[in-house]
């Protein structure tokens, strides 16, 4: 009897989902589960989960994929951190132990934000796959990469939301690492060197005004706390590097003025948005995993195969089918014989084949088919054409191939006008006598039209 389905309670994990999708996309035919048929999304989820638990309880592919992505995330984070440290040390002038403020703000905040805005616009346009050939190439690369390390048709998951959100959260590891590296490098510089901050520009006051405005904007997020961290105009003016003759003046020792602001700006404008984005993508992934509809064609096929809801009609043909062997090839049509055979012999003629003809292959084929008939064989004999030895040979061949109890009738008729007519009394008597001599309980002789 039908087994009830488990409750579809908890959400799917990424490993479960990816394992399931890879299994569902494979060509192998799953064995049906004895469960109640047809249900909503919840029932479908519950059934798929049970199938997954039975088919692949250890989730090897899903876990491997999750580990691979986790490894890739760590790698990206590490790469980002190295990039961050390298950027910081690249910005620092070795000669003066000083960091150029404008370049610092550009490299650490403006450029990563520019990337972020461009990607967001691309994503909002809704079709990065179509708009960006780079994404198409990346997907191809991913598909190829996954194929080489994971079994099964992994390409199917590459366009699904949980995977895309996992990929999006993974991509945040690069900027996360970058900002962490930058911050680490920043504090290392402060700790290990007498680091100063300066700026210089050919435009002088214009750049100063721009910097002032930028600092004001950067301070906005924490301005409500009342702790102003942005250095004022004097500090900015003091940090401007000037020339005395052809010599550049070293900037004053101003680390105490600048580092709290710059570190906070890195945290708030650099690290925090990436942490938030990472969290948002993870949440979106979880939401996608919670609301899986499993309604794509491949899911419907799997559901159908598992439920096996089709009503089957294990029908066999009725066991009254008879083959007519037309001795010599009379002109009598099968349909004209049909009512008599149905009502008198209670058999249904299906084929009318010729025997006693020159074509040996045709005769052999006819005898082969006749020997397999479920309801019996009818040997059609025109009364004038009865030849005992020929009939005996034919019967022997049928018996040789067919089952011993296969019923055989010798139907004797006068077929001269094309329509069967009752045979002449004498001729039928001759056939009847011959049949009786055979002493075969499964062979009988009958005259056309006999009541």
């Amino acid at each position, binding site marked *: 009897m039908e087994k009830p389905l488990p409750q579809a309670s908890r959400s799917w994990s990424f490993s479960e989902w990816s394992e399931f999708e890879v299994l569902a996309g494979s060509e192998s035919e799953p064995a049906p589960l004895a469960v109640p048929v047809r249900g909503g999304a919840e029932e479908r989820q519950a059934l798929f989960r049970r199938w997954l638990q039975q088919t692949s309880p250890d989730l090897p592919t899903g876990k491997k994929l999750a580990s691979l992505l986790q490894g890739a995330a760590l790698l990206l984070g590490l790469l980002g951190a190295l990039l961050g440290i390298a950027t910081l040390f690249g910005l620092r002038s070795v000669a003066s132990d000083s960091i150029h403020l404008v370049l610092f703000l550009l490299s650490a905040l403006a450029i990563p934000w520019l990337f972020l805005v461009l990607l967001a616009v691309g994503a*909002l346009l809704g079709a990065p796959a179509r708009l960006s050939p780079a994404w198409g190439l990346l997907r191809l690369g991913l598909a190829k990469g996954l194929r080489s390390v994971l079994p099964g048709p992994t390409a199917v998951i590459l366009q699904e939301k949980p995977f895309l959100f996992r990929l999006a959260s993974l991509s945040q590891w690069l900027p996360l690492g970058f900002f962490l590296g930058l911050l680490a490098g920043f504090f290392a510089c402060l700790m290990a060197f007498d680091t100063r901050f300066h700026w210089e520009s050919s435009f002088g006051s214009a750049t100063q005004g721009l910097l002032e405005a930028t600092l004001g904007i950067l301070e906005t997020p924490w301005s409500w706390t009342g702790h102003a961290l942005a250095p004022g105009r004097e500090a900015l003016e003091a940090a401007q590097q000037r020339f005395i003759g052809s010599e550049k003046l070293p900037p004053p020792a101003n680390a105490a003025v600048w580092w709290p602001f710059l570190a906070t700006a890195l945290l708030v404008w650099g690290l925090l948005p990436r942490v938030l984005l990472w969290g948002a993508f993870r949440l979106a992934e979880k939401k996608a995993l919670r609301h899986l509809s499993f309604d794509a064609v491949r899911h*419907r096929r799997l559901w159908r195969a598992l439920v096996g809801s089709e009503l089957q009609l294990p*029908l066999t*043909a009725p066991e*009254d089918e008879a083959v007519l062997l037309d001795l010599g090839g009379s002109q009598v049509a099968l349909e004209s014989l049909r009512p008599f055979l149905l009502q008198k012999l209670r058999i249904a003629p299906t084929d009318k084949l010729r025997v006693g003809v020159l074509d040996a292959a045709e005769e052999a084929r006819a005898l082969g088919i006749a020997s397999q008939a479920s309801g019996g064989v009818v040997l059609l004999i025109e009364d004038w054409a009865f030849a005992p030895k020929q009939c005996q040979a034919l019967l022997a061949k049928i018996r040789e191939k067919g089952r011993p109890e296969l019923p055989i009738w010798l139907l004797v008729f006068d077929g001269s006008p094309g329509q069967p007519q009752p045979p002449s009394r004498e001729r039928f008597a001759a056939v009847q006598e011959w049949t009786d001599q055979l002493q075969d309980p499964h062979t009988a002789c009958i005259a056309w039209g006999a009541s």
Partner: protein
Amino acid sequence: MTDSPVLPQLPHFVVVGKVNMGKTSVLATLLEIDDQRRLRITATPGETTRVQVLPLAIQGREVVRFLDSPGFHQAIEAMRAIQERAGATRVPSLEHLRGFAEAAEKTGDFEDERLLLQPILAGAGILYVVDASKPLRDDFEAEMEILRWSGRPRLAILNEQSEHPEHREAWKTRLGSHFNLVRTFNAHQARFPQRLQLFEALLSIEEDHRGHIEETIRHLQNEWLDRRAQAAEFLYEHFRKTLPWRAEAALTLPEFESPRRKEAATETLRARYHQGIAQRQRACLEKLLSLYRHHLLQAEEAELALPDLEIADTWKRWGLNRQQLLSAGAVAGATAGGALDLAVGGTSFLAGTALGGLLGAGAAWWRGEQLPELKVDVQGIRLHTDRTRTLVVGPPGSPNFPWILLDHLLNAYRQILSRPHAKREATVLENDKAGPSHTLSGPTRQNLQRFFAQALKSKLSPDQEVPTLTALEDALTQVEEQLT
């Protein structure tokens, strides 16, 4: 007695009646069997020579068993023989029927009656089939009496084989006094709802195996819904592969530069494109026919399996009309424009939506009445080192093209649903009148238009799969509802 085809753990229903009343036809339509080798239906009386078991199974487990029987041939004589056994003063009972059957087996008399009584004696419920277009004669009275004496649950089925069932009322009155329930079921017209009703009627006469019958009905309903879902999947897969398809041929540079040879190649490709589309349509139709268990209803030959795309009339009569194309095109365009609005955070004040809608509608208006010109494109020109050019032909530049294909398939779907399985003549799906696409609801058309537009450009978004499947299921449901 021979081995009984009746098992006590299952509900059994034996279909009985006079010869040529359509007993086998009722079973063929009820169980969707159009295979003449499995279930024979002919005008020859006595076509059913013995009791044929027709089991219904779910996941290999039998749930209900129908039995086709030879018809009554000598009902009056059989009734007299049974009455004789009971004596003049007593009403015959099941035991008298049993005695009659045993005696008939020994003597060889009443072979048909004995065979049809066999499952009844073993406990099967009775489905008595009569043709309401035939007058109620004494031999029918005799049949009803014999069946009543059995005391088994009995359902009478009025199988109206003629357009004018003039004796229907007389039959209903008479059957009402002999049977637990009377139902009308035209085996040559019944569709799924009527089949379901007949199954539900079995619940009223068979109490002992209620669970099995309920389970069967539930499966029957689910299977029907599932078939529709599968049909939608077939259509989705068909359009997903067919709409982006183009006929292509590589031409050498001299061939390409000769206008005459290029035109000849284009003509060949045009013919190949039309043939390819027709073949794909036919393959889809064959899947639908198989899904609905039709073997005698057939799709046209590949060349004819589609309305002729090369005549203007097809483009006017089939698919959507100009207003519908305009409306569907506008919505599809507006959706694309809406994505731009979203990208700029709504600062465009929905200009993208409006512009997209206008462009979509404009394209539909401009091209809606366009005659079926196939698009011809050339690939390979940019690669100057390449010595060949690829000529690419298709699809027609009218937005009505996918709708004509859909219309053709929905028209066939309508015929498939309307065809009862009792019909035994091989028939080709008709292709001479337009389908029901223009009657689909606005939202269904718009969803499908979005899918068609993407598929034609080979830019099908994966997000489109589920909404398209839903829209196609809706379309099939609407076609089915129009039949009722």
